[in-house]
């Protein structure tokens, strides 16, 4: 489409009126906004002494966890779809044949580089078995870069830690592929 296309309506900036040109009315308008915020209730919390409240844990995107199936095994089937969907390339999986008869393959190693992660939630979207989920844990700190690469055991322990407060998001689907 060209700028001269007749279907485009071009708007012109309105010329300043008398009140704008006098400056003082707008100045008072600005001061009013500042004054209103001075007396309104505070939303800032003193983190970390004070914990912020997470609105809806179902849609909050915090630290990842790897869910367990009812038998306590890792639910992941090592399909690499999260690693494929990940725009930050922070997921590294090594797949191998599973030791269980009802499952074909499982992750021998599953690593998420939490420092590379941008917490977009695409891995959660992509997962066909709801094995990877983002919890509402938001204070993610570590003393070294190595510590921030979460391996399978650590991600499973996040699940053990959060499963009571945050049940599996789609528990009804259950089962594995």
């Amino acid at each position, binding site marked *: 489409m060209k700028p001269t296309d007749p279907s485009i309506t071009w708007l012109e900036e309105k010329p300043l009126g008398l009140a704008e040109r006098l400056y003082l009315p707008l100045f008072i308008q600005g001061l009013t906004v500042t004054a209103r915020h001075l007396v309104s209730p505070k939303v800032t919390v003193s983190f970390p002494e004070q914990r912020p409240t997470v609105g809806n844990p179902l849609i909050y995107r915090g630290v990842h966890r790897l869910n367990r199936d009812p038998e306590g095994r890792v639910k992941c089937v*090592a*399909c*690499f*779809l999260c690693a494929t969907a990940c725009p930050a390339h922070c997921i590294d999986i090594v*797949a191998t*044949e599973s030791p269980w008869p009802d499952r*074909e*393959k499982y992750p021998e190693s599953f690593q998420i580089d939490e420092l590379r992660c941008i917490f977009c939630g695409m891995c959660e979207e992509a997962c066909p078995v709801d094995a990877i989920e983002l919890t509402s844990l938001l204070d993610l700190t570590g003393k070294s870069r190595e510590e921030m690469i979460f391996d399978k055991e650590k991600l499973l322990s996040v699940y053990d830690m959060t499963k009571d407060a945050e049940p599996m998001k789609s528990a009804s689907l259950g089962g594995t*592929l």
Partner: protein
Amino acid sequence: MPVVIVDGQEIEIGADERLNCIEAARRAGREIPHYCWHAGLTVVASCRMCLIETGQRDAATGKVTMVPKLVPGCQTPVRDGTVIVTESEKVKESRARVEEALLIDHPIDCPICDKAGECLLQDYHFEHGQAERRADIHPFTSRKRDVGPTVTLFVDRCIMCTRCVRFTREVSGTGELMVTSRGAKEEIDVFPGFPLDNKLAGNVVDLCPVGALGDKDFLYQQRVWFLKREANVCGGCSAGCSIHTEHNQDTVYRLKPRENPHVNRWWICDDGRYGWHHLHDDARILAAGRRLAPVGQTGRHAGNGQAAAAFQPVEWADVVTGLRADLARAGHLAVAVSPMLTVEEAWMLCAVARSIDPQAYLALGHVPVVGDDETFPGGFTIRAEKCPNRRGVEEVLAVYGAGGHGWDDLLAQVASGTVAAAWITAAYPPPAGDAADQHRADPAVSWIDEATAATFAGLQTLVVQDLFESPLSEVATWRLPAAGFAERAGTWINVAHHAQTFRQAIRPPAGVWPEGRLFWNMLGRRGLHDPVAVRRQLAESSATFAALAGDVPATGVDLRVRQLA
């Protein structure tokens, strides 16, 4: 010329060509979906995916008479006036029904199926199938069956196209696979005690249009959409099969055959297919080194660790100058040009050698031969000569007036004491292991024995360029790393004088220069190592290689044919 009408488009075919509707439609740019048909196998027309409408145009009146029912395109030959309709409502409806029937009994476990991403069932269902599932059964079982040392069968994913069964009967001639039971209970199986164990077994995995046959070597290793592919040539034997090297982040994950009617058609053998593991072997020589103390003082046979300590690492820039100086100082030079090198590398090596010593003795390197040529009923031959470029190196040596000089001649020269220095290029991959362990060859088994290597011990300077340690590298003054087959670029000429040009698929490990790069720098040429420039120059200067002057087609050129023309 006969004319075929594909969806209203008239295309001419050769007068003596025998094409079926799928092939004719492909010429017109129309893809007729098919599972069971494969150009290299007999036609069974069992999958019904290629059903199309056909008819015949009357040559005199131009009136078209259509066949009332759909016919399988794979089984219907075309002739002058044949009318093919590939996109009518009737055809589309038929394809959707075939897809639906196939998926009724298919465990839709694409996320854990290794074929996902290159699966015809996925592709065709996306293109021709319907979105909703009307069947209320969910047979999500996935039974696994071990059919051979290299192949696993996922029974429930199979769509019974029987390509694999026909392959073992017609091409490998071994007939291990068969169809058991009838109707909806049909399954692929092997007889008890007769596993799918032949040198071409891996091809059934490539043939399988779905994820039913899995290659144990590749299973669960990588999803196919992560792989990048480079058109390459197999270096396993002198047949020089066209392959695709599939890799990711400089790691090869699998080799696949590349269709080439002049060389390997659609197949490759398992020796070649699994013959890439040595590329990523820890035992490879990864740095250029020069011997610290003379041979003998460090103990030649002291084992791998101590032998390695006897070499001091050398920067490649110093190798380029130091090697030339050392060889020039030593005197009469003998050079073994390995049949693993490309034509370009061989040519540059000869030029380097003659620039150091104008009288340098050039000879073909050791040619590994294992057993006899093995030909299968389908016409595929595995050559006994386990190197890809003997012909090419011989032709290059002929250019330098050293035609006919072989490895034994070079050994005789060394034994007679007339040479003071030798430069042995090797780059031999370890020989393929026995059938039980053909995946991983043993790098400890060397191409040269201790006694032969000992004859080189008296030389003033011995340069050995190889992938792995060998008895010869233990007596070397210079030990240089070599590149594996996927790490080189250039031209190989196979046993039938067919030249194929290929590019580098993966970068060699850090610290390794492919041979060509060293020769390029030793010749003092400017810029980056450019095998294409070398090839053009070689083609201009030599009538033998004239056919390589321009861009070489992906399927290669026959050097002899162009010479006659």
